[in-house]
């Protein structure tokens, strides 16, 4: 016996979400460049906002892909997205100011090839497979780039690879104490991997509603931003990290309360300390 997933029409069309997510993510990630222009780290949180845009888009992509019944479940799609995304993102960081756009291009190429392999060589034969896997690779790359920019201050390879270390009272540049040196990118990897698939995985069922899923996607994204803000304490100034933390907490609390309100709206009943309510006929 398997769980039935019912595809319900309605809600925001996927193409609209895709364009909004892509444009929003790129714009927000580029806004972290204000850091370089103002010679501070305060604008790093825009990277996190960019990642959240990508994650909201991604939750709908996973919904589109998994509605066709790929047979192995939702979390693997998240792993595929991030596995291909991290490779594209790391190469893209070598391109300086062009990094976010290069990330999209590279991830799209890798994702398209992986989609072709999955659909035609592995004979999955799902209509939306190639497009979905391409989108997911792009989402993976963008969300990773967003979190990396938020933690390290910039999406440039040099910025994520160099950190500081206090040695005999002096601060020296150290490669070991950087975002890459401590492999914090692995944490961003898994934060994004779980956050991409959780909204659809947690709200799937016969009474699935798109708005509830999208609010949950926002909530997962902002929750991840809170943790990245804490980790950015090691790489950015205290003020910048506190700004990121404050913005993340406020936005998380807002999306979380909205999600609870929507769940209350959709639930069959909202009971506290009541016994099992048997349906008629049982």
């Amino acid at each position: 016996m398997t769980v039935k997933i019912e595809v319900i029409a309605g809600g925001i069309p996927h193409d609209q979400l895709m364009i909004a997510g892509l444009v929003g993510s790129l714009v927000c990630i580029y806004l972290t460049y204000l850091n370089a222009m103002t010679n501070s780290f305060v604008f790093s949180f825009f990277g996190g906002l960019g990642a959240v845009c990508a994650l909201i888009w991604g939750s709908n992509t996973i919904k589109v892909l998994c509605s066709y019944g790929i047979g192995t479940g939702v979390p693997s799609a998240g792993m595929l997205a991030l596995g291909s995304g991290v490779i594209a993102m790391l190469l893209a960081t070598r391109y300086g100011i062009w990094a976010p756009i290069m990330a999209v291009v590279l991830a799209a190429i890798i994702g398209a090839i992986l989609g072709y392999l999955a659909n035609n060589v592995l004979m999955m034969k799902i209509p939306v497979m190639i497009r979905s896997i391409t989108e997911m690779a792009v989402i993976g790359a963008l969300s990773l780039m967003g979190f990396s920019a938020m933690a390290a201050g910039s999406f440039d390879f040099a910025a994520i690879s160099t950190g500081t270390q206090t040695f005999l009272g002096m601060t020296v540049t150290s490669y070991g104490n950087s975002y890459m040196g401590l492999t914090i990118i692995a944490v961003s990897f898994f934060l994004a991997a779980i956050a991409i698939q959780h909204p659809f995985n947690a709200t799937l069922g016969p009474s699935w509603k798109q708005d509830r899923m999208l609010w949950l996607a926002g909530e997962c994204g902002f929750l991840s931003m809170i943790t990245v803000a804490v980790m950015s304490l090691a790489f950015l100034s205290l003020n910048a990290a506190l700004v990121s933390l404050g913005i993340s907490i406020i936005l998380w609390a807002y999306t979380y309360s909205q999600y609870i309100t929507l769940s209350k709206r959709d639930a069959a009943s909202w009971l506290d300390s009541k016994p099992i309510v048997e349906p008629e006929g049982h």
Partner: protein
Amino acid sequence: MVENIVLGIGLTAMAGALATVAGAAEDTESDIGSQGDPNSQVQLAPQMGYVHRIFNKAIAGEPPAYGLWVALGAGITGALLAMGVNAILALIIGTVLTTLVQGVYATTAYLGRIASLAKFGQPVYIDILKSMTTVTMAHAFVAIFTTVAMCYLMNAALGHPFPLALLGVVWGIALGAAGSATGNPYYGKERQYQNQKFGAGVPVAASGNIVRYAEAGERNSLDNGWFTSKLGGPASGICFGLIVFLELWRTVLFEPFLHGWGAIIVGFIIVLVFTIMDRYIEVWARRTYGPYVKEAAA
């Protein structure tokens, strides 16, 4: 590598002990939250008309979820350590923050899944949300703390080249895989379907008919956790503890021999020993239990 072999063995034993506790806590946590493959039954039951009061924590499976928790704990710990924070304090802060994240994910999973079952009349039980979430967070704290502490020992004391966050990913996924493999059948078959015949798998026709009324009235996930912590939890603990301990032990003790081939030969021997033990168990079961026979008509 550790110069002092006695210190190395002591650290290995410590890591193994931490891993054992981690495995037990991980399995109990995932059984109280009902995560992973057995959770498909908790999801299915209302659709077959069996409304229940079990927590439905659908956060991917245990390996990716624990990959995230341990990686996150290790990452925050690593970042704080790089800032010069005291190691124990960094561990605690990292684990507490991760546990809070895990708790939030658990609540959103329960609310989402149950609200999406509204068509079948499954209510959202707020008291289940309030009671179970804190308990599962507590077990998660133990599991994450011990695993991150183990990773810290490997990195700082045993000299493994991986940074903390990378070790966190590796051992988080391994913890989830080992705990899930060992604990899931015990929770799924033995406790969820306690009303089925003992000593046989659940027949396909009984899918969805999980136990909802039991010893103490209406069953909830705390009852399930109480049961599985008697065997499923400790077995997962010993499984993961053995994995970590033997992996470290064969390397620390035998790698200096034969330019590293010593550790590989010892590893091969250990695999053979476990194969023999498994074969013995399989044959014992066949001989002692015997084949399934049709019941004679009464």
